[in-house]
Every structure is written in C-alpha cells, then in structure tokens.
C-alpha cells in the first residue's frame, strides 16, 4: 500500500471512532453568510483611495492620487525623476550602491492601465526591460541590477493598503519583486474596500477559483519588504522592494470612452 493510502486509511479509521473527543462529530463549515469580514472601509472611491493611501503610509509606502490618466502618467515620471535625483545625491556622498542601472522592469505595456506610458518613458531615455526579455534564462540576468519596477494591479484593498498582483501573459512576477523600488498603478475601478469584498464579487461572478488557478501565482502585497529579525529593529528592503509608491487615479472617463 502506498504512503498515500496508508495515511488516508489511518485518518479515515481514526475519524470513524465514536470515542474520539476531538474533532467534534458534526462541525459546521463557514459560509458566505456567516463568515466575517475582518476589516472594514467605507465611502466613495475617493474616500477609499485616501484610506488606501493612509494605510500604505503606515506600512512605510507612499502614494499619489490623481484625477485623470494623463496626470497619473506625469506622476509616474515625476516619481522616477525624484528617485533619480536622490540617487545622484547619494553617489556624491560615496555611499555604496549595489544596483546601478536605470533600467525599468515593466509589465507588458498593453497590460498597464496607463496608455502611452512606455513611449513617454523611452523618450526620457529610460531603458525598458520587458517580459519577453525574460524568456531566455540567460537574459534573466538582466533583471538582476534593475532598480525600479512598474506594474499594474489586479485589485487593491483600501482597509489594509494592499495590492493584489497576479502572474500572467505579459505580467512578470519579477517586476514587483526584485527591484529596489516598485511603482504600482492603481485605477480606482480596481480599488475595493476590503479583500473580502473583492472575493465576494469574484465568487459571485464564478471566476474566483479559475482566477487563482490560471494565474499560477497571486500575491497580496502590503507595503515594502521588511524584517524585524535584528533585535526587533525595523529594516526595509530585505529582499523585496525597499520602497513602494502607489499611483491611484480615476479611470472612469477612460472606461466610458472604451466602453
């Protein structure tokens, strides 16, 4: 008999016993009606955006809220240039920096919610490392020194300042993971009050299980990477990004135009 069968048989045999004090005989599973939502958030999409930003700030992230897609595009560029300047100042003071290139690790531009971003970045002489560049395992070395990653999100949750990113065609896992800094583009149409509210919507549409499975990898990200292992002191950027900047913007107009 295989180990599988031995383990399962043993479990079944034990669970059949009447003298077992644990587990209870007929426990009730949680249902959508009974299961609690742990956190809460209220208000219109602007209130939720503000709440998201505040929660993210508590986690040592930063954010900007913009009213249009065009403004959002400019905000991304502004953030990149700010970081560029900060780094140059650091170099002047001869602080050792490990990843020196100004390549940008991006999701496939078609998957990004801000059209025209990629060409705008190219115009400013940023070099874009795109997912197709990662196909060759030797080429993967290219992502090693990249300092900034830019991705969209599949959803964002206001009550905890959390973003949800799923892997997929054109959506590399590395872009939100390996660079020192991460810019997350969050259209307000994808901002939900809580993770539970998003789950409920997906479940209702019948797409929750498939979404998880087809993505192969779904990650909830709440702020920059951190550790308190060293004497309970907080340090950021242990393996994942040290800084995460969320750009929240209203895409309602864009959606109406597209729709």
């Amino acid at each position, binding site marked *: 008999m295989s*180990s599988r069968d031995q383990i399962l048989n043993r479990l079944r045999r034990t669970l059949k016993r009447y003298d077992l004090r644990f587990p209870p005989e007929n426990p009730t599973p949680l249902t959508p009606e009974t299961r609690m939502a742990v956190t809460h958030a209220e208000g219109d999409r602007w209130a939720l955006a503000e709440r998201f930003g505040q929660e993210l700030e508590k986690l040592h992230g930063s954010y900007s809220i913009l009213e249009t897609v065009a403004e959002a595009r400019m905000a991304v560029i502004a953030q990149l240039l700010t970081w560029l300047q900060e780094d140059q100042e650091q170099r002047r003071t001869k602080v050792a920096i490990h990843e020196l290139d100004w390549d940008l690790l991006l999701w496939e531009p078609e998957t990004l919610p801000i059209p025209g971003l990629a060409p705008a970045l190219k115009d400013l002489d940023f070099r874009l490392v795109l997912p197709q560049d990662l196909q060759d395992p030797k080429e993967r070395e290219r992502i090693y020194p990249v300092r900034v990653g830019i991705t969209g999100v599949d959803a964002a949750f206001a009550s905890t300042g959390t973003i949800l990113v799923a892997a997929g065609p054109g959506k590399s896992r590395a872009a939100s*993971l390996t660079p020192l800094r991460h810019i997350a583009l969050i259209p307000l149409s994808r901002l939900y009050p809580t993770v539970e509210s998003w789950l409920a919507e997906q479940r209702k549409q019948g797409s929750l299980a498939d979404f998880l499975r087809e993505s192969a990898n779904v990650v909830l990200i709440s702020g920059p990477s951190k550790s308190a292992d060293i004497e309970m002191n907080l340090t950021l950027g242990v393996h994942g990004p040290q800084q995460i900047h969320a750009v929240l913007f209203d895409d309602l107009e864009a959606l109406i135009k597209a729709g």
Partner: protein
Amino acid sequence: MSVDVHAPFKKRVEQALSDPALGSAVERATRRMVAARAAAMAAVDGERLRNQTRQMKEYVLRHLPELLEELERNVKANGGHVHWAQDGEEANRIVREIALQASVKKVVKSKSMTTEEIHLNQALEATDIQVVETDLGEYIIQLAGELPSHIVAPVAHKRIEDISELFHEKLDIPSTLDPAALCAAARAALRREFFSADMGISGCNFAIAETGTVCIVTNEGNGRMVTSLPRVHVAVMGIEKLVPTVEDAILQLQALTRSATGQALSVYVSMTSGPRREDHPDGPDQFHLIILDNGRTKMLEEDYGEAMLCLRCGACLNICPVYRTVGGHAYGSTYSGPIGAVISPLLAPDKAQFKELPHASTLCSACRDVCPVKIDLPRLLLDLRADLVVEGAAPLPEKLAIRAFIKAASSRESFERAGKLASAASNALASLSGGNIHFLPPPLNAWTQSRDFPPFARTSFREWWQERMALRQRD
C-alpha cells in the same frame, strides 16, 4: 550559543537561566509581539475571528481525508506533482529524488518549521547539494551554525552585537551596529544565491483544497523569491495545514498574522497554484507538493487532535512565562513554547523522549487565552502528564513516593499510623527552628529553598472528634 541542545533538560534550563544576554533578547522580542498581537486583535472583532477560525479548522479536521484528496486533485490539474510521506526520512528521500532528476546543485529555502522538523537541510547537504536559508533570521542562524529559537522570530536570542560580529567574520563586511547596513549586506549576498539556485523549497502556511493552492506568508519577500526565481519549487506541508476555500484561507491568514506579529497582513502573501503556465514570462517550470504525516495521524489517534488546529503563529510562545524566561533552545526540540511542549512528545516515536516538556509549565493558561484557534493547551499538557505516568515515564522518586502513599492510604490503620508519624517528625523538626520548618531533607529540600514548611497538627481530626464526642456525651 549558551544553551547546548544536546544536554539534558535540567542542564539546558540552567544554562539558559545563567545567560542574562539571552534573557534580555528573548524578553525584548516577546514583549513587542505580545503588545502587537493584543493591539491587532483589539482593532477588530478578535473574539469572533478566533471563534470562526476554530470553527473552520474543526471542520477541516473532521473532513481531512476528503479535503486532502481534493487538494491533490487540484494540484495535479494545475500541472503540479503531489507526493505523500509517512515520515521525515521518506520526505527527505523524495526531495533528494526530485533534486537528482532536475540536476539540482543549489537550493534556496524560505523559512519552514516543517522542514526543520524533518532535518531536510542535513539530508540534502549529505548529497552535496548546497542549501541556503533566505529568511534573514534563518540566514543568520545558518551562518552561525545554530538552531532557531522561536517559531516566528528565529534569532530572538541574538543581540545586534552578535550579528555584527558574525557578518564581519562570514560576509567580510566592516563591523557595524546599523541594522540597515547589516540588512543591505544580507540582501546583496542572498540576491546572488536566489539568482543562481536551481530549486526553491518552502513550507506551506496553509493549502487551499478547492484550488490546489499553496500559501506562503513572509514579510521579507524571500518567500516570493524562493517560489518564483528557481526553475523547481518544492513545498512541504503537514497534513493538517489545509483550508477548504479561498475565503477560508483569507480568514485564517488574518488570524495568523494578527496573532503572530500583530500585523493586519504580512507584507507578502504568495498563493501558488502549480508551475507557471506556458505563456507566463517567469516562474518555476516544476511544482511539487509533499504532504507529510510524521506523527500527525498518531496524534489524532491518541486523541490529541486538537493540537492539529495549530496555525504555527507563535503567540503562545510570546506570552508563556516559561518560554520568556528560558527561550526556545531550552526545550531541546524543533517546536518550543506551550505548543512545542504538547506536540514534541506527540510527534516523537516515543513520548518519553520529551518527558520533561509537559512539566515545563505552570498551567497559567495565558497560552489558551491568546491562541487564535483556542486550543486548550493546559488541558493537553495535563493529559500528557497523565499519559507519561501510564507509560512508565515518571521519574523514579515520584514513582516511589506514589507507591508509598498508596500503601499508607490503603487502610484506615496504616493511614492513621502514617499521619501520627508525619506529625511527630514534622513537629520535632519545627521545634529545632522555632515554629516552622526551614530545611527539609533531600529531595524535599527543593520546597524549602524558597519557603517554609508548616508542621502537621499535633492531633489528627479523628482524635479531636473522638475527644469532642466523649466530652459531649459526658454533658
């Protein structure tokens, strides 16, 4: 390291107690986490969260076989492989085989107590595979050649001076007490490892049966690195680490993170459902799930199934006065603290291997009050103490004392005689020191080390009653 994990229990405790640096490090770590947990649970309906998580896990345990089969079906449908291991040896053999077939030379690991339990690292290193721990705390432990001392904060026992010295020696960086600099050094060193590793091994905080998903929770990002960068991913899970649906997973996740470190969510919650799909730009090509028994079915059989609800959050460690005084190494087991005192004897082939642990408790019940799934740890500890006696593992002096008591209490006459003897002896001793007894002979001197022992009454209740009745009859 001040505590020798191979020394006998008493010695380990003595070593821990005589190291003030260890004490202050453990105190600092646990105090923080206790306060954080309390705040995080107070910020939400913490009681309801505990009740619902418990309810869900009870359901899981009752339906464990079916849920495990559902998990297996779905992992396979996702393109992953499922392996079953009855014990650690079998699990290690399976991992080595996977590594062999995939020509693996280097493994990166994210923190997993289950892999510590089965000593996976040693098994891989024996076949010349390099294993790199990537959780910052575990990495430090590995550099130092030690064992972790806490489920969630493996380096709780180390001060920054220790870590600075270690990095200076092993990573060749200048000595510094700046945590950011130490962290940057570790990040750079480990970055190279992540990119050159062939296989990533992780544990599994919980698996979702309905989608065949393995969830890994980290704050550093190494969990994501380990499960996304190398071409092979192996996840090891205990049979009980299961939830039925995605919504249950999110509920358990929040109970776990709030109880462990007081966070609403950990920074990264990585949910992996098989290897990457054909048209994805990155991710592992192979995914293997190893479902491990290693004493868990035995635990259920012996009716300690409640301990299988454990989420491995560490909240009971943080609040336990015993753990806070001696730290984790004194327990001499992979799992320490109250839950460790329960499952270490149960998972071992012979409970007596850890016979002191159920007694390393004052039964204060603080652990039960913070457990997110409300495991009645004090009850389980008491039951274990009873089981150890039944299995003959009680210490010899205790056995002799009980035998003597049985003899004395088996008839009225012998009980009276014993009582008279105790009264005479204790009053004689007491008169030597003017009232109370300051020194009892060994082994009872442990009692009088910190308190006096009162003498027995000069007359027994029976004698007093008979005198009174005689007096009454006269009147």
